[in-house]
């Protein structure tokens, strides 16, 4: 099937404005007759729930944490992009659009990216009005910093806690709506199924994580804002609770999964210290504004104290390879370059898996106080984890899984191929192509939540009669029973391996064979090993306790079971895409370490249709057209 993204046509500058006018509206008095479910309360979900509640819809919002304020958007450190051009350095909506298309290695839709760039400016204004304390100068104007993949300073920030402050802004707007009664909040609930009746999304099945009870909720539209899936690698920068589960359940009910092989490996994370490690910690890309990345030129120097390695014996490889962007090369490129140096035997620290991020020159130039003011909390975090002082000794960094560009397929209205199912933020695939630029995730989450879904959901709801299906419909009962049966199966196995052990194993396979670089051979290994591991899971997993209580093992077991299915799809997608682009690097397709795209055969979105566990999924294509930014080899040299 050829998929249609339903993008508006005509001059790109007018597409979103024209489309907004063309969308049908729901009359204010009728809005309260419609129920909308929002799953996830991060930037996309929190902003959507607050904005839809304010418009007058009846909103039910869900999160697995104990409070909507804890969603993983909170961990974003560096900043949020907008095309304000406050520094007068040549930025514009067009340039942000252009940088994002190019940064995504020409694998995103032009119309969606244009809209994102256009509404980016509204986001900053909105957050300021909410009381987000962005960094400012002494005169009182908003301050900017630079980020990877751009030659202008367009990144707004709140110390090293931008995600936290933006999320607390969305959470405060959401709290206001909860108080007003337009949003009903359900915390400590995990979505475990999507209820589809006659091909239309009608509600969800959730587990109350405190009591263990199954609960059903019906609505006229369901919005998933359930984040990304890089915990498929086990060790990632994502929170422990992040999973593919909500998306995977929707996929199993018919929603197409687009470009799952596009995952982002962030170049600056604290290297792994041991096997017991539960997660990896990111250090903001903003550090590359003032930190210089290097490894020793000579292998024999790798074990030395970095201070004992002479300037001439240091290889500032990003500055050498990419002189015009230098240390601010985009993430996919910086990560691959780090891996290349380490594979060459010039990595530092345990196992030779690390590169230096050195602030020595900046401290000399600006003074330690300035560096402390800019990045103090990051240096503190680094010291807590490694027991090393980043002011005195270069930090050690290694790439780690961080973000997923792939996600559920959506059209221009953010609606999946299942009518009534919308997907927002990282959970969808739409704007980042094969690689996301730094400071663009926050932008997308808030764009989708504040400024896109409030319009596009109306266009859908205006065409449907409210309240057609209620929770007394037999499909709700069936979904609850299916979920319970699966949980009872897991609880009944009483095998020998813990859930963590399985997750570590599948994560290891994915990192090894479907990580920063993939080959046909490595992917084929995974396509043999993953089904075997999945089979073992269903025979040998050990989950203690019962389903009718708070049971974290059971929660993790369900998420792991879904990763054991999803990981196979990810490998299939990576195997079918015989090219390298952005975060998807197939070693066979390269030009001296640079990704080699194949625009003749692969200039499309690959969206997969589920056909059953272990069965070959069906590929649907949405061709990508570039009318405004011409397809070119992406160069940061």
């Amino acid at each position, binding site marked *: 099937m050829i998929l249609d993204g339903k993008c508006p046509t005509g001059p790109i500058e007018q597409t979103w404005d024209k489309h907004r006018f063309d969308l049908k509206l729901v009359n204010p008095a009728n809005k309260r007759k419609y129920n909308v479910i929002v799953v996830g309360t991060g930037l996309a979900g929190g902003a959507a729930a607050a*904005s839809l509640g*304010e418009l007058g819809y009846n909103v039910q919002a869900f999160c697995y*944490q*104990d*409070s909507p*304020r804890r969603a*993983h958007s909170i*961990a974003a450190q560096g900043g949020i992009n907008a095309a*304000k051009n*406050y520094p007068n350095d040549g930025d514009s909506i067009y340039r942000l659009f252009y940088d994002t298309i190019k940064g995504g290695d020409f694998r995103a839709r032009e119309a969606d990216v244009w809209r994102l760039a256009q509404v980016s400016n*509204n986001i*900053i*204004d*909105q957050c*300021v*009005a*909410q*009381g*987000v*304390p*962005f*960094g400012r*100068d*002494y*005169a*009182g104007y908003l301050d900017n910093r630079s980020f990877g993949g751009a030659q202008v300073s367009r990144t707004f920030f*709140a110390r090293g806690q931008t995600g*936290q*402050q933006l999320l*607390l802004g969305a959470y*405060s*707007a959401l*709290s*206001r709506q*909860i*108080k007003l009664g337009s949003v009903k909040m359900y*915390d400590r609930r995990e979505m475990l199924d999507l209820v589809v009746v006659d091909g239309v999304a009608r509600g969800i099945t959730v587990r109350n994580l*405190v009591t263990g009870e199954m609960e059903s909720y019906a609505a006229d539209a369901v919005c998933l804002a359930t984040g990304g899936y890089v915990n498929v690698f086990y060790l990632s*920068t994502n*929170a*422990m609770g992040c999973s593919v589960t909500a998306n995977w359940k929707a996929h199993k009910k018919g929603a197409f999964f687009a470009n799952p092989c596009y995952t982002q490996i962030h170049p600056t994370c604290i290297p792994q210290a*041991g096997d*017991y490690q*539960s997660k990896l*910690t990111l250090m903001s890309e903003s550090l590359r504004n003032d930190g210089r990345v290097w490894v020793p030129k000579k292998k024999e120097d790798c074990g030395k104290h970095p201070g004992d390695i002479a300037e001439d014996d240091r290889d500032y490889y990003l500055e050498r390879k990419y002189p015009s962007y230098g240390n601010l090369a985009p993430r996919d490129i910086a990560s691959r370059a780090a891996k290349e140096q380490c594979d060459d035997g010039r990595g530092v*620290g345990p196992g030779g898996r690390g590169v230096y991020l050195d602030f020595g020159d900046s401290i000399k130039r600006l003074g330690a106080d300035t560096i402390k003011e800019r990045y103090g909390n990051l240096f503190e*975090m680094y010291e*807590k*984890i490694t*027991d090393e002082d980043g002011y005195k000794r270069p930090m050690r960094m290694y790439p780690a899984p961080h973000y997923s560009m792939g996600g559920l397929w959506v059209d221009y209205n953010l609606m999946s191929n299942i009518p009534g199912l919308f997907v927002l933020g990282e959970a969808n695939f739409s704007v980042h192509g094969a690689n996301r630029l730094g400071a663009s995730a926050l932008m997308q989450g808030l764009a989708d939540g*504040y*400024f896109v879904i*409030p319009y596009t959901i109306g266009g859908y709801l205006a065409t449907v009669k409210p309240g057609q299906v209620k929770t007394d419909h037999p499909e709700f009962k069936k979904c609850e029973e299916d979920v319970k049966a699966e949980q009872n199966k897991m609880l009944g196995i009483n095998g020998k391996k813990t859930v963590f052990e399985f997750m570590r194993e599948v994560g290891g396979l994915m990192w090894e064979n479907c990580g920063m670089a993939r080959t046909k051979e490595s992917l084929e290994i995974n396509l043999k090993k993953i089904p075997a591991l999945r089979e073992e899971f269903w025979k040998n997993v*050990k989950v*203690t*306790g019962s389903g009718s*209580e*708070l049971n*974290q*093992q059971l929660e993790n077991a369900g998420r792991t079971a879904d990763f054991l299915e999803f990981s196979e799809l990810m490998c299939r997608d990576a195997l079918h895409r015989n090219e390298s682009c952005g975060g998807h690097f197939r070693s066979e397709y390269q030009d001296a370490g640079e990704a080699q795209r194949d625009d003749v055969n692969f200039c499309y979105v690959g969206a997969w249709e589920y056909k059953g566990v272990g069965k070959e999924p069906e590929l649907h294509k949405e061709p990508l057209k570039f009318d405004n930014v011409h397809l070119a080899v992406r160069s940061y040299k």
Partner: protein
Amino acid sequence: MSDHKTMTLTLIVWRQKNANDPGKFETYTAKNITEHHSFLEMLDCVNEDLIHAGKDPIVFDHDCREGICGMCSQVINGAPHGGQDRTTVCQLHMRKFKDGDTIYIEPWRARAFPIVRDLIVDRSALDKIIQAGGYTSCHTGGVADGNAILIPKPVADEAMDAAECVGCGACVAGCPNGAAMLFTSAKVSQLAILPQGKGEAATRVKNMTNAMTECGFGNCTNHYECMAACPKGINVKFIARMNREFLKAQFA
């Protein structure tokens, strides 16, 4: 870094099946712990042993494990988050402990935080305080340009100092009165400092302090234990500021 000396520790952990269970301390041994383990990774190891032995693992709240989500919440040897300056439990590392140490682990204890299970408590009262007024009543869309109202750096910085609160509740757990004054004052102050929040400052402080009392939190008697426990270093000066805002509101 490559130092592989390991520690063995005795853990005395609060176990409580649910809100109605009386609960009790149980003793466990943590083995093969290195100085690079985070405190929660140490508990992960203990839990793996418990699961293999067919026992219920210790239940605790955690999520981001990088000190920002505010989910983790344990009193360690009597100190919320373990007592290391500006550190959440998830960022506490085992290099702060010695081989052979005995460690007491308890949940947040406060009247307004009922225990859910083991080390997990119900902190929804903190959400209720925010719902009572911890926002500016702006609408989505239709707001002014971000630079329309200038906010000089020292003002923006002070607001940010207050805004850093992660809502973990350590201040409540540390306070002998179980007060949520530091938490509430951080939000009241952030929004009272910024021009965008000044218009509603009087109603906000009244409504939020009312919610605080209704939720069963105590009052401040200047022990400063909250500031000592706070993993983000929120200063008690914001409580003074809230008191001033409260007084001003009586005449507004």
